[in-house]
């Protein structure tokens, strides 16, 4: 059986590992810590701003410059990846590649995203909607007044308006705890008793026809907890993602990891992959800081970007890809960081590896750096994921495209 080694357990690494094991490969997933999914919103952004607000994300994908990772992966891989996620995680992700949801954020702005959790979509902003945003006194990462007042003064993407007000519930996640984090509340919402207590405290404050916005803490292990709460309240509810830790992100992370685990992926957490070896120009193995070597026929670099240490910038403005020392695109054209922090985009954000149509990192002349090394996700050059809201879609599409290329190559 052919052996594939995936490095990194963010969205790209998890999707790649799952696709490769589905294709019948023997897959090992090496990762340093938990991946970035639970630091995100728990939704799948495909294209949010290009640079104006995007209503049809897959159309925006088809219009990118040739240097953009979407151009390498292709729209078909984006659609394939989104369909795969919806099929594998039906209780967690819904949506239409041709129509973004427009969802309220924890600061009361309106965020475009492609696939969202069913617990979020009642928040999709509509002209004439009446929202009530609910804060919990002991949860200090969520400010309902800020959310409600910002939403109420915003012209919606379709030109309409909504009304929004805020209310509070005073209910500790655990007895005596005055400052709980979101995960503490999510665990509480996993229990029927807490949902009853919460609904009892909230119900009298609700008016007819109001849609109820809550911090995204409505259950962690029980992905239907939000639905049960909605039933108890007799109102539609929606979750608004919080700053990390993201409970919706944890749900996605756990579901994709569990799927990989049960499909037989060998998962090795807590390892930093530091060196590699080659035989006849091919990557033969990678070795962890603890000195364990993993050999394989194919390797997927899904290690992320600067935030995870996959890219490193030294004090001389030299950027390095820290595992394979791959050639980088976006360097050498002047300063990578300029001082106008609220001005033009920092060139640094587009630095990464360039890939061919098979998602293999290439050298400046367009040839694969190694014939059996593929790359996916945040390591790819040419996109500002945080600004475009394209990082999730790039991760999924590049992972799907890389897995397909590997499967074809090894079969």
């Amino acid at each position: 059986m052919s052996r594939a080694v995936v490095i990194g357990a963010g969205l790209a690494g998890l999707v790649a590992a799952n696709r490769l094991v589905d294709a019948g490969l023997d897959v090992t997933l090496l990762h340093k810590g938990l991946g970035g999914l639970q630091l995100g919103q728990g939704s799948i952004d495909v294209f949010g701003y290009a640079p104006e607000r995007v209503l049809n994300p897959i159309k925006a994908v088809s219009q990118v410059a040739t240097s953009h990772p979407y151009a390498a992966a292709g729209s078909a891989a984006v659609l394939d990846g989104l369909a795969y996620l919806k099929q594998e995680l039906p209780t967690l992700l819904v949506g239409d590649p041709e129509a973004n949801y427009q969802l309220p954020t924890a600061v009361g702005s309106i965020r475009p995203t492609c696939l969202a959790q069913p617990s979020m979509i009642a928040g999709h902003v509509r002209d004439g909607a009446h929202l009530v945003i609910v804060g919990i006194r002991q949860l200090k990462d969520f400010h309902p007044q800020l959310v409600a007042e910002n939403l109420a003064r915003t012209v919606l993407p379709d030109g309409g308006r909504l009304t929004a007000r805020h209310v509070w519930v005073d209910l500790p996640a655990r007895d005596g705890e005055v400052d709980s984090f979101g995960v503490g509340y999510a665990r509480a919402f996993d229990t029927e008793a807490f949902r009853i207590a919460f609904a009892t405290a909230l119900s009298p404050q609700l008016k007819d026809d109001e849609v109820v916005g809550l911090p995204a803490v409505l259950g962690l292990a029980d992905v239907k907890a939000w639905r049960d709460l909605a039933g108890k309240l007799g109102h539609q509810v929606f979750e608004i993602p919080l700053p990390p830790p993201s409970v919706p992100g944890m749900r996605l992370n756990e579901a994709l990891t569990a799927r990989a685990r049960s499909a037989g992926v060998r998962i090795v957490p807590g390892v930093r992959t530091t060196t590699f070896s080659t035989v006849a120009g091919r990557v033969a193995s990678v070795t962890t800081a603890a000195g364990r070597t993993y050999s394989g026929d194919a390797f997927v670099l899904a290690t992320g970007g600067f935030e995870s240490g996959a890219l490193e910038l030294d004090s001389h403005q030299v950027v390095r890809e820290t595992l394979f020392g791959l050639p980088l695109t976006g360097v050498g054209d002047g300063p990578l960081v300029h001082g106008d922090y609220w001005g033009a985009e920092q060139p640094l954000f587009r630095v990464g590896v360039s890939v061919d149509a098979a998602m293999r990192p290439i050298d400046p002349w367009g040839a694969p750096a190694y014939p059996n090394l593929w790359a996916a996700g945040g390591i790819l050059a040419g996109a500002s994921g945080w600004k475009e809201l394209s990082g999730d879609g790039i991760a999924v599409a590049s992972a799907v495209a890389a897995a397909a290329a590997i499967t074809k190559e090894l079969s």
Partner: protein
Amino acid sequence: MTIPEQRLVMGEDGLAFAGHKLSRASLDACVKCTICETACPVSAVTPLFTGPKFVGPQAERFRNGESVDHSLDYCSSCGTCTLVCPQGVQIAELNSQARAVMKADHMPLRDRLIGQTVLMGTVMTPVAPIARAALNNKPIRKVMEAVIGVHADAPMPPAQSQTFEGWFRKRPKPAGPFPRGTLVFFHGCAGGYFEVETSKKSVEVLEHLGYQVLVPKQGCCGLAQQSNGLFDGATKDVLKLCDDLRSAGTDLTIISSSGSCTGMLKHEAHEIMGVDDERLRDVGTRIRDIMEFLLELHDAGELPTDFAPIEMTVPYHAPCQLKSQGIGKPAIEVLRLIPGLTVVDSNATCCGIAGTYGLKKEKYEIAQAVGKPLFDMVKATNPELALCDTETCRWQIEQSSGVKTEHPIYLIHQAYGLS
């Protein structure tokens, strides 16, 4: 190999090291992402522990000798926080060090006693039936709880009438030949005195594969002392153990079926106590957990897989101290080679015991709450047998779920037709 002069950073001034070298250097890598907080099994079940980030990278910045957050004592040192940290912060190590400093001037007698694993073994073995009876006797345990602070319902090591060493010396010597060469076996205190069967089966499997197995006389790795903050004693023990293991040969692979002691040698003694010694580095890089070793053989195409079928579904729990070694869950991969056997990964974070944490009367209930999802999963999967790589975790799972819990090597031994 010549060994450079011993460089022991800790020595008599061990606590001065704590919190100020290796781990502290990782502190600034913390981006406050809170991933560790979401994974901590202790703060999930009790508000008495505020969580690894709060008492670790955050509180550490305010520590100047004295600790600012005494909830630190409720950290079980399971190491999950370090394992899940994407930035390489040594959260568990920072917390273990800070706790050692915090407890230094008022170390409870109980915490000194329960670190003395060799003493327990040597006292109990000659009077095994009496020791067993005493540790199963409710009134005696109640007195123990009141006087020493070890909870009356906490699991205790099962006293055995024969030590592993006694068995190894007295048995008929295997005649050989040993086509695969020679290995050194490290049994650990528990594997020497209490989990004797695990050690025997491990040696028999290795011999079945064609290895000659050497068992040098060996002492304790000091883990129980380390986890209770007794760094000086633990450092002396671990270095003495390195000498013991090196006495059998300085280029042989060392195999252990004691998952947590292996972790002590591989990284904990260095990362938590700052032991910086060539002997430890040597032993730490040569040692393999037995299931890790079997998987390495399999990956290299050198493990015979003529396993007899075992028609069974069995729950498997990977202990925290195995997971922190960065080797994944090798037992699962190896057990899956046995025809008919379905291995179900508990995927539970921790069983709660964390070495000696769950024995302590003030922490017993927390440890039970931590382990509850695991105990439920074990009972639901197979009420007859569960598998787990480390001793105290097995005692905890067995005591709290009522399901017999053995080392994975039991089934390998059986599938090779050795039992």
